[in-house]
């Protein structure tokens, strides 16, 4: 593999890893705080899948980088500006509806994205995608059911779901923007064309919304910048908590 591909692959893998870790960390905050015990357990399961996914991407990224760094070096010793996760992953769990709608938008996206990635020319990536897509299909079944139940449930749940959709809507366009690295890797059949997924994603989401007594906002807006390290103020607090031990006592074995 040439130098350019190598550095493109590294930044691509970091983006994928950061997305998974930040969402996993956020989702793990539900542990012991779920609306009932069964759901508490299910949310922890989703969080575990994402942290596991992050580890696979970080491990691969560390190998590609070739500087002897580890998954933990990448997760614990990069700052806010270095994290390249998409913004939707870092937003706090404002309420259960917010977390569910976020998860639903991301699950629809992940199923489409990973289906493509399974046929990546990079075998390591296609293997990760094969494992991850099974998890994401299961996540989608869950989040889709929640969207339906809460959309059609009570007036309050319908109102909370609609407001979560309205709040999150402008964070979805970023899911479909290609970075330079992705474009370079796409040419070699390694990465996935995000732009191509928009139509199917919108179609699925519209259908589910219609079923669920919910609406996509008329107003189109977007907030972007995660891949360039331009984050909300929320990420820094998440990282300062997550990284505290490694940063306080660098270089130790835990």
């Amino acid at each position: 593999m040439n130098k350019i591909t190598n550095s493109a692959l590294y930044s691509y893998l970091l983006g994928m890893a950061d997305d998974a870790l930040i969402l996993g960390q956020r989702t793990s905050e539900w542990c012991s705080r779920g609306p009932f015990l069964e759901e508490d357990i299910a949310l922890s399961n989703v969080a575990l899948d994402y942290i596991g996914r992050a580890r696979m991407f970080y491990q691969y990224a560390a190998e590609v980088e070739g500087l002897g760094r580890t998954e933990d070096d990448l997760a614990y010793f990069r700052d806010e500006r270095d994290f390249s996760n998409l913004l939707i992953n870092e937003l706090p769990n404002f309420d259960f509806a917010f977390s569910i709608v976020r998860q639903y938008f991301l699950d629809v996206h992940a199923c489409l994205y990973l289906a493509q990635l399974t046929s990546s020319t990079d075998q390591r990536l296609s293997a990760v995608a094969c494992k991850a897509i099974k998890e994401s299909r299961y996540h989608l079944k869950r989040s889709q059911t929640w969207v339906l139940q809460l959309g059609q449930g009570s007036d309050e749940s319908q109102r909370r779901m609609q407001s979560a959709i309205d709040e999150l809507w402008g964070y979805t366009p970023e899911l479909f923007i290609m970075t330079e690295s992705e474009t370079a890797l796409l040419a070699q059949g390694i990465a996935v064309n995000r732009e191509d997924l928009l139509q199917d994603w919108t179609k699925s989401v519209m259908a589910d919304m219609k079923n669920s007594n919910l609406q996509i906002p008329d107003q189109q807006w977007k907030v972007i910048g995660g891949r360039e390290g331009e984050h909300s103020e929320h990420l820094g607090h998440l990282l300062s908590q997550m990284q505290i031990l490694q940063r306080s006592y660098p270089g130790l074995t835990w």
Partner: protein
Amino acid sequence: MSDSGQAIFDRRIEAEQKIEPKDWMPADYRKNLIRQMSQHAHSEVIGMQPEGNWISRAPTLKRKMVLLAKVQDEGGHGLYLYSATETLNATRDEMNAALHSGKAKYASIFNYPALSWADVGAIGWLVDGAAIVNQISLQGTSYGPYSRAMIRICKEESFHQRQGYEIMIALANGTPMQKAMAQDALNRVWWPSLMMFGPHDSDSAHSGRSMQWKIKLRTNDDLRQSFIDQTVPQIKFLGLELPDPDLKWNEERGHYDFGDIDWDEFKRVISGDGPCNRDRIRHHKKAHDDGQWVRDALEAYHQKKASASAA
């Protein structure tokens, strides 16, 4: 009268056969079980909090996953136990209400704070370790659903204990700062772990009846001694100092002697004035209250579906 419910029940207990939900049982047996089993369920669920306190700060991604999976398992244990208690006609709402009002207790160990990463290790090692000693004995308990829940749970608890001990091994072999962290955690978690087995047999309010009904099979003191005997060599293996100067092998008894447990502290903590009692209940109650609209919405959804299919 020979085949009265009571006679059949007594014969089954005598013959060490399980009592099942549909079997006749004395009202006090049922009451005693509900008390003990719901207390056990609440302990699993409240026990998610001290370790859960470190999920966001776990020092490696692998440790984060193992810890999250562990805390999630405890939720699962709570679930099995609530379900088993429901077979006695106690509802989840009643059990939650009793927890929030303070009427139902949970293991007092969880009213202590998890102050450092080493506490996560010490809790897995000592608290799950103590729980295993108790729960292995409860596998033989006379109520079928409780016994089966214990068998399922014990398998996972031994994994928890191992992962906790692994954290302690890493710390004990680490820098002086890490070793001190491990020692501090051991010193703080040790005594409350011994208290997990409950008061001395001579002071235990419920023990007599429970032993008679074979709900409990070994006494508090007996279980506590087993735990101490198995744990002291593990402390030595870590190279940590013993947390009690009176811990000494007694050749004659074939057991370790140990110092006096501070039962005043135990009473203070169990009756509500431990360092975290109020936080634990507030946390649980807040999650429950925040989730009210979700549970209401689910019910509304299912009602709509039911009336739509009836129409």
